């Protein structure tokens, strides 16, 4: 028998496609999906990559400058920005409260908990989460009328789905010791949750809620497009009338607001997880 080679024998790289290679099938599937997507959309590439289209795009962007900065208009933009901020904050707060209420039936609190409400509560949370804020807003406008109230409710409903699911995972992953200690002493479920589980998971819940607030300020800024108040309503109004200078001011306010909330939430979360 020959002694083993000092260097490993040189092997050719595997063939590019192999019927047993899962990643190859995956890549082929993705490629197929992409090609089918582009093929089925009537994109009219020529229309918007032509010189004329690019020129009209440039003209449109040029019309934005300079932003309208008259005192009266800036004041109304500030009011709308405050409305957007209030919508996002209140929506997130309501969602955090509702999320905790729904997360309780949706989580298995201890090993012997049969949790009969777990499956239906999770189904509800998933359904709330699957429908985007804008669609909820369009639906709720019928019940709540035009204005920021419908937008706040829409944000709250969608975010409840997101937060409820995250909260229930946080509650299920909390260390079981303190809760078990209280339970063996004969405390009821509500007390066990309030004095053992909640203090443990509270920083995590707050950090999730702050993170969602960042998302919600973006969402609240555009909800107005369907008539739910705030900056979005001004945006679609002025853009609809082709008042590009005013649109530019609204867009700037939107960017500023988003950056502000991002910064505040980042600092707050850093302080929480310090």
């Amino acid at each position: 028998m020959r002694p083993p080679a000092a260097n490993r024998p040189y092997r050719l790289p595997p063939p590019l496609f192999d019927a047993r290679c899962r990643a190859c099938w995956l890549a082929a599937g993705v490629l197929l999906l992409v090609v089918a997507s582009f093929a089925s959309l009537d994109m009219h590439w020529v229309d918007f990559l032509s010189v004329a289209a690019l020129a009209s795009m440039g003209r449109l962007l040029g019309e934005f400058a300079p932003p309208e900065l008259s005192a009266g208009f800036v004041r109304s933009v500030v009011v709308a920005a405050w409305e957007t901020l209030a919508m996002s904050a209140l929506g997130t707060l309501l969602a955090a409260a509702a999320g905790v209420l729904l997360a309780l039936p949706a989580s298995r609190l201890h090993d012997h908990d049969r949790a009969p409400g777990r499956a239906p509560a999770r189904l509800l949370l998933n359904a709330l989460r699957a429908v985007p804020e804008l669609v909820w807003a369009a639906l709720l406008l019928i019940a709540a009328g035009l204005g920021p109230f419908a937008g706040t409710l829409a944000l709250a409903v969608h975010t409840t789905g997101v937060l409820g699911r995250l909260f229930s995972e946080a509650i299920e992953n909390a260390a079981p010791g303190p809760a078990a200690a209280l339970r063996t002493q004969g405390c009821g479920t509500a007390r066990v949750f309030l004095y053992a589980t909640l203090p443990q998971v509270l920083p995590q819940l707050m950090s999730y809620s702050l993170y969602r607030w960042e998302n919600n300020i973006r969402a609240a800024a555009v909800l107005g497009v369907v008539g739910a108040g705030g900056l979005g309503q001004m945006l679609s109004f002025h853009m609809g009338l082709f008042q590009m200078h005013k649109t530019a001011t609204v867009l700037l306010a939107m960017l500023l607001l988003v950056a502000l909330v991002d910064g505040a939430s980042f600092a707050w979360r850093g302080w929480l997880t310090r």
Partner: protein
Amino acid sequence: MSTAFVARRQPVQRDPAWPGRLGWLLAAVVLLWPLLVTTEFKPWVLLDPQAVRVTGHFIASFVPPAHSLEFLSLVARETWRTVAIATAGITLGLLLAVPLTLVATRALSMSALTGQMASLPLALRRAVRMLLIGLRSVPELVWALVFVRVVGLGPAAGVLAIALTYGGMLGKVYAEILESGDAQVTQTLLRNGASRLQAFAYGLLPQNAAELTSYTVYRWECAIRSSVVLGFVGAGGLGQLMDGSLKMFAGGEVLTMLIVFVGLVALADRLSAALRRALG
């Protein structure tokens, strides 16, 4: 047996910290008041007889969901369109994000191999990162509103809007992922004369491929949700169909679309979870 054991003192049953908790709660309500006023938070509006009648009619019209063959085939076509807009948008976004990521990644810096990164590359990397953050912070709906003005109603506006927003998002996070790992392999390759692209392909990419792919798949799932929303401003797909049905108060059609929608998102969720698990 002594009585001391039998008459053990009951522990305090009341929350010793309740005055403080009550105080914080009251302070929160006071802080909350301006928010409630600003958002015109009047839940009793929902119980107004007029509103209840309109809402009741609308909800009653939900049943039965629209199920004519013609409508279902229309919904199927628009659902595919929604997925296609999201996929095409993400693909174009990748074309934008990958080159910018390569420019922005600090791990591929030559000058940083010998101490401090030189000032010109540093400025370039900062500028590219600012560009990515800027692209990301304009909501896709705003991009779509702008593009609808330029290229007209249709899927092109939606695709471009998703491409720009998600290009910024993907580029920023890709750069963060690439920089978070161990840079030693890449630096060794660079020190031994590999070009930046070679160092990326043989050093950074194999280390981070799983994470990059899983983030991309997750964003694809988000793009499907966005593409429905973009339909509301005229980019086509399920959103546009739903906007039409809502305006005509066609409850049955709305319910069918909501069901399709929840199903689509659940499917994308499942698919992306399975893919991410497979990639490990």
